[in-house]
Every structure is written in C-alpha cells, then in structure tokens.
C-alpha cells in the first residue's frame, strides 16, 4: 500500500469527517439541520441556507451513473492503469460525486448512463480510503 502512486486527498476541517468515515468503509454526507438539505462536497456552512448546523449522515451508497468518461491519456502512473473510467454518480439521496467506476469493461457500449451503481471502498494507503463505485449486482 505505501507504493500507491495516485493522488491522495489531504482533508481540510470541513471535509475530515467524510474522509475519516471512508476509512471505516462508510459513506457519509453533510446534511443541514436547519433546512434539511444534503450537499456535497462538504462545506462548513450550508450552501442553501448558510446555517453552520451541519450533521453527518450515512447514505445508502447506491445511485445511478449520471455521466462518465473513459480516460486514455490520463494522470501519469495512475494506479488503475489506462483506460480508466471517471464517473459522476448521482446518489439516491440526491447529491452527485465524482468517482471511478470499476469492475466494468472500459467500453462505451458496456457502460450506460442511468445504470445502477454501488459504492465500494479502496484502502489505498494506511491513512486514505477512496470511495469508488461498481455496477450494482445484476446490472451488467
């Protein structure tokens, strides 16, 4: 694991609970206690109503593929190797996040916008876990 060659996130105060939860293989998102809006990426203040009263909520980890690209000329030494799939996933709870779609052939005829996907966790270093997504069972 120390040999991981990809970029890793360095958390900031408002994002640390997200990354810490990922190390426990939990996907948590911030939800405003005042207006109940869930948002992503995590802000220290609700971008809808500006309240600072933010709670962290574990989400289902399921969603749909909103859009994707198959990267042929990518980041140097990216651990997934080329071609790899970058995806925008719309979580069932609403917010969208960027991720990699794995366990699928990097072939535009095999990946469908709208397909069901689910989270999986990759412990890439002792301190960092990346949420990635794969097709939901029975999807492909």
């Amino acid at each position, binding site marked *: 694991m120390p040999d991981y060659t990809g970029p*890793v*996130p360095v958390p900031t105060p408002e*994002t640390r609970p997200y990354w810490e939860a990922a190390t426990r293989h939990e996907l948590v998102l911030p939800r405003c206690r005042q207006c109940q809006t869930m948002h992503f990426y995590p802000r220290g203040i609700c971008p809808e109503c500006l309240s600072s009263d933010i709670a962290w909520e574990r989400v289902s980890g399921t969603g749909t593929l*909103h859009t994707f*690209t198959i990267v042929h000329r*990518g980041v140097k030494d990216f651990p997934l190797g080329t071609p790899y799939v970058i995806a925008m996933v719309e979580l069932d709870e609403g917010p969208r996040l960027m991720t990699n779609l794995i366990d699928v052939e990097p072939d535009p005829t095999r990946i469908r916008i709208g397909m069901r996907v689910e989270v999986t966790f990759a412990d890439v270093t002792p301190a960092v876990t990346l949420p990635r997504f794969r097709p939901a069972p029975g999807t492909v």
Partner: protein
Amino acid sequence: MSRGLSPRSSKLRGKVAIVGASESDEIGKVPHKSAMQLHAEAARNALADAGLTLKDVDAVFTAGVWMASEAAEYLRIVPKWADGTQIGGCSFIAHVEHAAAAIDAGLIDVALITHGESGRSRIGMPGTRFGPDSFRMQFEGPYGMAGPPTGYALVAARHMHDYGTTSEQLAEVAVATRKWARLNPRAAQRGPLTIDDVLSSPMIAWPLHLLDCCLVTDAGGAIVVTSAERARDLPKPPVYVLGTGECASQVIISQLRDFSWWEAAAVSSRLAFEMSGAKHADIDLAMFYDAFTIVPIMGLEATGFCQRGEGGAFVSHQRTAPGGDFPMNTNGGGLSYTHSGMYGMYTMIEAVRQLRGECGERQLQRCTTAICHGLGGQLSSAATLICGTEVP
C-alpha cells in the same frame, strides 16, 4: 439559473470602444520568450495599433496566475486601476465590461488588457494553485482527472446521451475551423483535415479524440479600450462595445449542476444581448471559444443561436466554415490557430480585425456586428461581448 437576474441596462451601450488589438510578435512555439515577455509584446503591439503609448495607459487588466500589478510592473506602468479578475479563459472579455464601467464612470481613461502564456514551452510560468487539500484535489484528483479534456468529456458524454449529439457532429466543428485556419497565415495548424481524420485521431478521454481538443501554444494578446469619444480621434476605426455580460457558476466540474447545459453562458449572453439591443440575426461573426469541439456546440445553444440540444445539428454540413451561412472562429480558433491557455483574448482580436476589414483572404464580405463568447475553467464561467462598427 442564478438567483435573481434582472434585465440589463443599455446605459453602457456604445460608450467605449476597442481601439487596439494584437498578438505577440510570435505565436505558436516560442521557447525563447517568457510568458510575461509575451504579455509585453502584445501590449506594445496593441498600443501601436491604437496609436497610443504606455503613457496613455492608466488602467491595467490581466488574468491567469498573475496579479494585474505584475503585468504593470513589467511594463513600468503605475496604473490607478489594476484589475486581476480571474474567471478562466474568458476573463479578458469580462475585463472589457469592467473597463467600460470604469471609463463611463470617469475613473479611468485608457485600459490595457493583456494576456501572455507560455502554455507549450512553460517558460516563466508559475505552478498550479491547486494543492492536495484543495477541493479539486480532494474530490476529483484522486479519481484521475487529467486536466480539461477529462472534464469536458463528462459534459460531452451527457450531451450525447440527452440529445443524440454525435462524434461526427463534434468533428464538424474541428473541420470547419481548420478550413478557416488554412486562410490565416498565423494559424499553427493549416493542413487539410477531414471528419474521418478527427474520428480516427487517438482517443484522449472518450468521447473526445485528440482533434476534438484545442492546441497548446505559446502566445500573448492584448487589447486597448477607451471612451467612444476619444476613440473617434484615433487612427483606426473604433470597434464599439455594444453589450457585455459575465457569469461564473462553479470551478470544478463535479460541481456543475447540469452536465448538458452551459448555465453561465446562458446568463452572460442574455445580459450582453440585452445591453446591446442586437438580435441574433444581426450577428455577422461568431467568435466562440473552442477549447473542445463540444464547447461551441453548447455555446450556440446557451447563447440562443439554436435551441437546447440542437447544437450538433446546427454545426452540421460545415455551416460554420468559409462559405457557410454562419461564419464562426474565422481565425482558426483554439483548435487550429492558437491556444496559449486563455483563448478568450484572441476571440476579441479577431473580431476587431474582421470589423475593421483587416483579415485578407479570410475577410468576411459583411461584418458590422460580432459576438465574442468566452469560456472559463471547466464549463465554470462565461463572458460575452457584442461589438460593432456603429452604435445603433
């Protein structure tokens, strides 16, 4: 849509004019000059074009990785207005709006807007401002986002899904733009190009091929803006600023609210058209920032030249090429002429030249009104300028 957008006043229509415009001496591959040198050369050339000198300049605008005062320092200008508004590659178009407001308010007289970037050779270029704790590197970087092509591929894929836009339609843009470049001696890429060439070029990030992507060059560009009154005393015919608009929606692509619609462009163009009083049919020349072939397609939709989803059909059959009924990017665009990093500047330089009738072989027969429509970041922002030879 952004929160609260009231109709734009036409108060600034025709109050200021672009009086000088130029690139640096050399553009393309210029490893023997620093980025700031390219700024300075362009500034010198634009001032000469305007019939003005450094002593006339009292306001300096630039964008990118520099403070506006760094460009001023290099040129030994001590401006009373320094504007470094940075919203990506369209910033310089936004600067025209800021300059117009400041000139009209009597705060400044002559605005120098400069761009210079050693995009290809990376000479005298500061590094990235996105550290590992930036939101970009926390929430996109770990997934292998490899610069602009990957972001625009996400947008192109969704546009194709929603509207049936095809790779052939994207390639139409590259081919039509190359035809214009073949008429521009300063264009970097002037060889013949076919749709098949584009489709068979290496895949960078599906669905974008290499030839769907703009060039990466070294170049500078600058324009000079002053009051319409003063402009009429200068040697070359004024290019009047008729309408302006700008809008910034987000920075990183994952924060885009709608992956098949350029929200910022819809706002900036609406504001510019409202200020100008011009109609779409009045536009003789369309200068649309073409970082990737999908961008002008979505730009044409967002600015109202066609309906949402119809951009692919709009550019089909080489409609935007020489001889087509919708001349677009007559300099050869970022795709084939030059793209040093922030191409918005060059949309205005070409518009000025077309409106003055200085374009030689590629000169449009009729060109009295032009639109310059710029892009910033990852579909992050937009700025629009409508300019013309007369004030209606």
